[in-house]
């Protein structure tokens, strides 16, 4: 059921500002792909264009084509909600629903898509919370508001919320930037598990993490401020971190730039 994602000539704008230009890359099913690069080079923008979240912002638009198993998700007759149900997303900043309890937050995706059975919801909530390494911390206060958790707990809550709907592709935008090493390891474990069935794309600023979890790594960069971000190099993670083909990649990875 895992999906193959193919981006060709993807260019994304915020109004008149071109944030990324001509991104071409193919993500194989059942792999973890890491997007790395300096701040502001368009990693989040590219990630958001994969589940059509980019166009939610007023004035933002995407050009080029993005196919999932040979279906162009930017086709006119594509149902956006179906795309997003298939491609889940964890955001850079945690965004739990403030009016919902922890439990309601986790099952929000199921419930709002029509699942009513209490037993199904209970089971899904526990499974998702365990996977996100949050179950032990919240199992006694599932009825408490989700916004009352710590920042890292909120982020794990959002991860649980995303995997509770079992998307086929999971996009993660710096999911571990607010997490302690133990939770980070748990999330990385989760990625290994999910990889059996799903395709994962993760943005990270942590080189070790990229090297640990990903099969392929894409390095994005910008020439100078105001220029659009470009894909500089895309290869097997091993190759990128041991013997990168482009000088710029090597500079970035070794910390000489960015």
């Amino acid at each position, binding site marked *: 059921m895992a999906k193959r994602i193919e981006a060709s000539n993807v260019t994304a704008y915020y109004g008149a500002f071109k944030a990324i230009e001509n991104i071409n890359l193919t993500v194989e099913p059942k792999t973890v792909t890491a997007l790395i690069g300096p701040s502001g080079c368009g990693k989040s923008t590219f990630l958001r264009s994969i*589940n059509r979240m980019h166009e*939610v912002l007023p004035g933002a638009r995407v050009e080029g084509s993005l196919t999932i198993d040979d279906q162009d998700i930017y086709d006119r007759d594509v149902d956006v*909600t179906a795309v*997003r*149900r*298939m491609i889940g997303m964890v*955001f850079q900043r945690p965004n739990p629903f*403030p009016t919902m309890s922890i439990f309601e937050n986790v099952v929000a995706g199921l419930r*709002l898509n029509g699942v009513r059975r209490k037993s199904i919801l209970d089971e899904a909530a526990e499974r998702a919370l365990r996977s996100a390494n949050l179950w032990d911390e919240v199992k006694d206060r599932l009825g408490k508001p989700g916004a009352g958790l710590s920042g890292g707990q909120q982020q794990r809550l959002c991860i649980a919320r*995303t995997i509770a709907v079992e998307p086929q592709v999971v996009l993660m935008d710096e999911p571990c930037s607010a997490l302690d090493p133990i939770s980070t390891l748990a999330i990385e474990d989760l990625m290994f598990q999910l990889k059996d069935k799903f395709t994962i794309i993760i943005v990270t600023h942590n080189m070790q993490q990229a090297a640990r979890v990903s099969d392929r790594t894409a390095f994005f960069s910008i020439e100078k401020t105001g220029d659009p971000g470009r894909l500089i190099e895309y290869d097997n993670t091993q190759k990128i971190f041991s013997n990168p083909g482009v000088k710029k990649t090597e500079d970035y990875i070794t910390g000489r730039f960015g």
Partner: protein
Amino acid sequence: MTTTATSHRTRPPAQQPTLRARRLPKYAAAAIAAAALLLAAAFVYGTGTGGPVLVVVLGALLYLAGLYAAANRVEGRRSARNRTWSALIHSAFVLAVLPLASVVWTLVSKGAERLDADFFLTSMNNIGARDPNGGAYHAIVGTLQQVGVAALITVPLGILCAIYIVEYGRGRFAAAIRFFVDVMTGIPSIVAGLFVLAFWVLIVSPWFNDGRPSFSGFAAALALSVLMLPTVVRSTEEMLRLVPAPLREGAYALGVPKWKTILRVVLPTALPGIVTGVMLAIARAAGETAPVLLVAGGGAAINFNPFENNQSSLALFVYQQAGDASRYAPARAWTAALTLVALVLILTVAAKLLARRNRLGR
């Protein structure tokens, strides 16, 4: 970074900034206030220029000056300014609360005279100028029905309109709607009353009433709706805009359709603010006199049917009793005014409690 660090280190220890500062003693502010008031009283009564009000005003000014001088002397300029501004802010608060407290006090003290069961259980039917009793039952019924119907019309319409403007409206059409809502905000209530009189009472209502125009509580509710709608739309709009975009995106990312996101995520988040806006609109409508007089006509008897015949309302009752020649009328007017304020207060508190119950307690 390094240069500042070294310069700190090379400083002689005697000049090192200390975290302690000299402070005025705790009683200083009270002492200065007392001295300022005494001085002001001595001056005002000594020269015979004014009364207690002038003493307080002059005393406050002297207090500010004295506090600044004393704090400047002992604690330094920054702290003196801080104390002066805090004192100014506190006096602004007192100034704002004074009229409110005075209104409440006047209402309660004057309204207490007729605060009896008779007032709430009888109408003004067959009450002459010499009768001391009589009540506002009919007016309470009128206010509740008219405001209730108006709220039933405006709340759904206003919230849907705001949702359209914020979530769906693009380009000219939405801008035009916003503009007209803004214009509507400025409509005087008498104009709203005249509009309903011309349109509903004189043109539409004869169709249902054998060709004769019919005054009714419903017509009053229509006029009140015209007044409430812009308030509801604008306040709901502001509240919806305050809901952070990442919340909507969080729901979209779960594959939730837009309408469901609005219904289940955006509206609940904005609910407390929306309730406040609706209650403001209701409070304003409940206090309107002119449109009710124009299109419901008032009346002394109880009329439970908002669709037929004249109805009164509390605000109209206050207006009529305050202008009545009977010496028992002013007391009725005061009690009716107190009732109106209490009614709005109760509705507001109830609505807030309801809205809070939907949110999770923190």
